[in-house]
């Protein structure tokens, strides 16, 4: 096992990684920007190094600065967390060149799975359903129209390099398709410096379901069951849960096995999440693979009792997984609410500022992952997440009930947060009965 690593991230995930390190007897070196200089979680690191000013490009996104910090701190490995450099294959390459272990997959896996068209092809090879669509990037309008007519409207145009909704268009006939391609290409070009587009059948009212997977260098690949992340707003997940409440046992097993096949096909190592769309008939279609730990990983930790960050560290240090698939049991129901500093009255725009009152909820089955505290400041420079509130109970009704109790207890003043929005969703009869799709939150809250 490593004896000393660096965490190339900030906030709650940095603290989460520090905790895992300390329980494994690993020293954790934190890096921070000047904007985070007075963050309390930095005190828990064994060393903290200022790497630059607030702007991410000059701190958390700066590969030279992070590598320099790793060198002066004399660490064996770097954990990238999520966001920032976590899915930057070049960063993983630089780490390798510098003789520093990257706690994540190889640069090749990242590159392969980061390309949506290549990932689709890989899923097909792994005999996993993909959404019917173009086999690769579409050449021109004529080809797009031909494919759209073959698979049937509505279809969705997506950026090959994309994510977060940029470069995406849903179209219902030849005319709107023709009109949409140019704009989508320009958007993709601007956002990802890659204008390649592909086309898929549009799945209406889908759920978002994903499978947590861990693979080691010896070729062991295990799944840790699924998470349902259907509650999202503008492609930002807001509430996640496990198990997926609408999935029958047999289908669930198929889903998890499909995820394993994808990861095996990619010769993948470390933690990954295989994302699927679930249609109204509970047919699942491969979407993409996230090659990092996800924000919502605690949901899986609660229902499986497994510490995913520790697995990442163990695998990166060369350990093999000493678990068999049947040792991983799924118990009860876990739900996570993301508590962001956002003002729902202002279209969920970030609401940074100083927290003058911060009282965490507690009790049986309640976990709060947060780096914030009373007197701390929510920085305007980074994402607005204040805390992840996770509950774990025997049944979904109990979990919803406890989550509502915990949300009501959580006091964060004076900034606005997503607590009322989460409360509204959890109190909705359609959420209780799981009659929801990925458009639910936008229909409810706008």
């Amino acid at each position, binding site marked *: 096992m490593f004896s000393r690593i660096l965490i190339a991230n900030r906030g709650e995930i940095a603290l989460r990684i520090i905790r895992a390190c300390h329980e494994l007897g690993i020293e954790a070196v934190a890096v921070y920007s*000047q904007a985070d*200089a*007075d963050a309390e979680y930095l005190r828990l690191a064994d060393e*903290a*190094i*200022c*790497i*630059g*000013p607030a702007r991410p490009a000059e*701190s958390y996104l700066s590969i*030279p*600065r992070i*590598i*320099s*910090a790793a*060198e*002066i*701190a004399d660490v064996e490995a770097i954990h990238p967390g999520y966001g920032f450099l976590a899915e930057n294959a070049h960063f993983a390459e630089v780490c390798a060149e*510098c003789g520093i272990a990257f706690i994540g997959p190889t640069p090749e896996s990242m590159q392969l799975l980061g390309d949506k068209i290549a990932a689709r092809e890989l899923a097909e090879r792994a005999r996993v359903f993909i959404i019917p669509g173009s086999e690769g990037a579409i050449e021109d309008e004529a080809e797009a129209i031909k494919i759209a007519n073959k698979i049937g409207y509505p279809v969705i145009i997506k950026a090959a390099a994309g994510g977060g909704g940029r470069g995406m268009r849903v179209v219902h006939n030849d005319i709107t398709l023709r009109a949409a391609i140019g704009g989508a290409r320009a958007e993709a070009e601007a956002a990802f410096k890659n204008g390649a587009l592909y086309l898929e059948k549009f799945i209406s009212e889908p759920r978002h379901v994903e499978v947590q997977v861990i693979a080691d260098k010896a070729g062991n690949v295990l799944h840790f069951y699924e998470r349902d992340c259907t509650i999202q707003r503008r492609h930002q997940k807001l509430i996640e849960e496990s198990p997926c409440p609408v999935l029958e046992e047999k289908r669930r097993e198929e889903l998890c096995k499909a995820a394993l096949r994808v990861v095996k096909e990619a010769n993948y190592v470390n933690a990954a999440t295989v994302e699927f769309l679930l249609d109204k008939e509970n047919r699942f279609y491969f979407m993409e693979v996230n090659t990092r730990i996800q924000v919502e990983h605690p949901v899986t930790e609660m229902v499986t009792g497994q510490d995913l960050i520790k697995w990442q560290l163990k695998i990166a240090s060369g350990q093999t997984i000493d678990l068999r698939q049947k040792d991983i049991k799924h118990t009860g129901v876990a739900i996570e609410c993301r508590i962001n500093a956002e003002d729902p009255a202002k279209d969920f725009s970030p609401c940074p500022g100083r927290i003058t009152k911060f009282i965490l909820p507690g009790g049986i089955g309640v976990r709060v992952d947060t780096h914030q505290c009373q*007197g701390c400041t929510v920085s305007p420079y980074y994402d607005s997440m204040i805390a992840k509130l996770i509950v774990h109970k025997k049944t979904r009704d109990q979990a919803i009930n406890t989550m509502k109790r915990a949300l009501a207890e959580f006091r964060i003043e004076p900034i606005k947060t997503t607590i009322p929005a989460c409360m509204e969703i959890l109190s909705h009869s359609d959420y209780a009965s799981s009659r929801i799709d990925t458009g639910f939150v936008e229909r409810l809250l706008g």
Partner: protein
Amino acid sequence: MSENKETKLQRVKELVELMKANDLVELEIADGDSKILLKRPQPVGPTITQLSPVPAPVITPAVPVEQTVQAQTPAEQQDVGLAEIKSPIVGTFYSASSPDSQPYVDIGTRVSPDTVVCIVEAMKVMNEIKAETSGTIVEVLCETGEAVEYGQLLFKVKPD
């Protein structure tokens, strides 16, 4: 000396916490030569009358404090009007281009904005750090081989 400053910094931090926790706007402790004066913004008051001349604030990059910390000691009073050369990157500090060479600068060296004052090595690259100011080096705060973080104070310069 450094431990003394450490202690003082610790003390100032505690006082700042005290101020924040209790919503104080001003706190002054004088004890012989030593004096600590801390002020936070008045929530409403239009003007603050300051009777004593106030030295340049001491900036502690690793643990910045929201408030302006004004910690005066006889030694620090000399800092009034000094310019500072800080590390623009994270890396390893070298005072000279090689172990056998003379340091780029030392106390008493005159520098102009383009004078190379040291090297900070980052990712095997030797980055020459320039003074960016004119004057005379009065203090060297790092030693060769020492790790420096972003914003860390390297030299103090007395301007011309």
